[in-house]
């Protein structure tokens, strides 16, 4: 069956809600994301748009009071929603792995980095300690850690941020997962290291065929690394397109704003473009389109109707009334 599935991950209509004392917070509100085999898919958005929660939902590592209330998460055609804790433990780190934003704090300070990677191997594979150690040193070599034998017995505090993130990537890749989720893996690193890490991730994808879900707020990273990109806003996907198409032809006013707020070397005006306003409170969402209060092209219909994702050709999907034939027809 697995061979017939061409997508590593398919998220279908997933809703992740947090049930707090002050009401339900719909952090992820009906998201569809598809990650084909051996593809790097970016998920972009501002803080609080639900991109990290999407990742944590896939990992099933949501903290109380968060819960997936609806939808399916298909990994190679197999639904992860409703798996028991034990089944998820076998999947995490083996079929899906994850790296995080903070390489400084994401490794346990009291164990050597080698031991922490070995632990991941021993959890999922039936190998001896020596074999696991050899595999760890191999993966260290592969992720470009100099002197891997020596680094095996280093503690996290003895390594730089870039090296630690390489260790994290090594730990994530050592069991050859189907999918690696990277939650802003380069945000805490400086730009030269960022470029190296992105290069490494692409190289690993090419070598192993692992799909990558790249979560970031940095469109530069998306342009550099991803094949396909989803733009999220307030818990919903607003636009989805192949990377080149999105940068050439940004169609949602939000994406447009995001792209415009990147400083460019050719830009001569003094002030940088910003999208006015703030991400809405998820408990008091505006009626109609969620982006409407901040949108420059808002129409009357926008406050009444939440548009569906509309296919505008070339694998490009947009959730905006501007592209709704019915709406546009009525105006003309």
């Amino acid at each position: 069956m697995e061979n017939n599935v061409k997508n590593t991950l398919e998220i279908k209509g997933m809703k992740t809600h947090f049930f707090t004392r002050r009401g339900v917070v719909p952090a992820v509100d009906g998201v569809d994301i598809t990650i084909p085999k051996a593809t790097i898919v970016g998920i972009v958005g501002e803080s609080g748009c639900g991109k990290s929660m999407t990742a944590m939902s896939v990992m099933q590592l949501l903290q109380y009071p968060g819960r997936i209330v609806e939808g399916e998460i298909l990994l190679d055609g197999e639904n992860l929603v409703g798996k028991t804790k034990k089944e998820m433990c076998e999947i995490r780190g083996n079929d899906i792995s994850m790296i995080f934003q903070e390489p400084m704090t994401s490794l346990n300070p009291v164990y050597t980095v080698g031991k922490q990677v070995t632990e991941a191997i021993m959890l999922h594979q039936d190998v001896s300690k020596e074999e696991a150690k050899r595999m760890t040193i191999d993966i260290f070599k592969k992720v470009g850690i100099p002197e891997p034998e020596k680094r095996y017995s280093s503690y996290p505090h003895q390594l730089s941020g870039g090296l630690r993130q390489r260790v994290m990537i090594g730990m994530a890749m050592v069991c050859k997962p189907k999918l690696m989720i990277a939650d802003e893996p380069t945000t805490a690193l400086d730009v030269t290291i960022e470029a190296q890490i992105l290069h490494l991730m692409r190289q690993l994808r090419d070598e192993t065929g692992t799909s990558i879900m790249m979560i970031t707020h940095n469109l530069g990273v998306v342009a550099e690394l991803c094949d396909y990109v989803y733009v999220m806003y307030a818990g919903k996907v607003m636009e989805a397109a192949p990377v080149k198409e999105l940068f050439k032809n940004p169609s949602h006013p939000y994406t447009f704003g995001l792209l415009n707020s990147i400083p460019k070397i050719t830009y001569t005006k003094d002030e940088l473009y910003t999208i006015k306003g703030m991400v809405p409170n998820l408990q008091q969402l505006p009626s109609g389109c969620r982006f409407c209060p901040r949108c420059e092209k808002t129409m009357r219909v926008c406050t009444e109707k939440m548009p569906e994702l509309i296919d505008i050709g070339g694998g490009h999907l947009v959730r905006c009334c501007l592209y709704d034939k019915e709406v546009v027809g009525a105006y003309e």
Partner: protein
Amino acid sequence: MFKYILKRLLICIPVLITVVLIIFWMLNVLPGNPIEQMMGEKLKPDVVERLTEKWGLNDPWIVRFGRYIRDVFLHGDFGDSYKKNRPVIDLISESFPNTVKLAVSAALVAWLVGIPAGIVSAVKKNTIFDRLCMGFALCGISMPVFWAAMLLQFIFGYKLNLLPISGYTTWKHMILPAIVLGWSSSGSIARLTRSNLLEAMRNDYIRTARAKGLNEGGVIYKHALKNSMMPVVTTMAIQFAGLLSGATITETVFGIGGIGRLTVNALQTRDIPLLQGSIIFSTALIMIGNLVADIMYSFLDPRVRV
């Protein structure tokens, strides 16, 4: 490492001298002299004079201090007890085994109860188990030791007639004091374990451990616990050193001849050499306890390795 320990031990010497200086000064300020305390009403002037001369009590206290420091640090001579007329060293080494027995058994109770109770209440946060464990811990911390001792003596010694009330000869005698003393220490250990474990569970590396596919038990025991034990181990070592230097109240209530009672008796009778000897002994123990805590800390946390 060796250099570090040596340095720490050498620092102990000036600290000890300062402690002795303070004791000397305080005993000088306190009313009453050892001879009056010993003889009571039947003071004979010539006896007083002879003893004062013999013990050198006519000299100013600073001179006596100098003499004492010289004897202790150069000759290892802590002097003789005024009251018991025997070397202070002998008296301390006679009492110490009882104190060690009491301290070890109490510490075992404190650790074996305190740490698991802390773990349970952290893992089952805000449940009935948490409340029970923390309630138990709070009782341990807030109940006066003498009261808890008498309560247990009443229940187990008098009502149920299971355990001896006083004395320190058989293993049965050790049970109640160990529980009483261990309970009060276990309270703070349990609370400390709980709060540190909860804090450790909020760290990013816990998320990494979960993302690796470790189950919740593995996450807690392999990753959170070791990180959360550092402050607990420090407290345990210092508490243990404190127990070794004598638990006066417990020793008194249960009639155990340990260091604590020795010290208090010495104070009551103005037995200056004995008092100084036992205080130096306790101070040294506490300082060694601190040193051991620091060394253990460096084994637990590679970041502070010396």
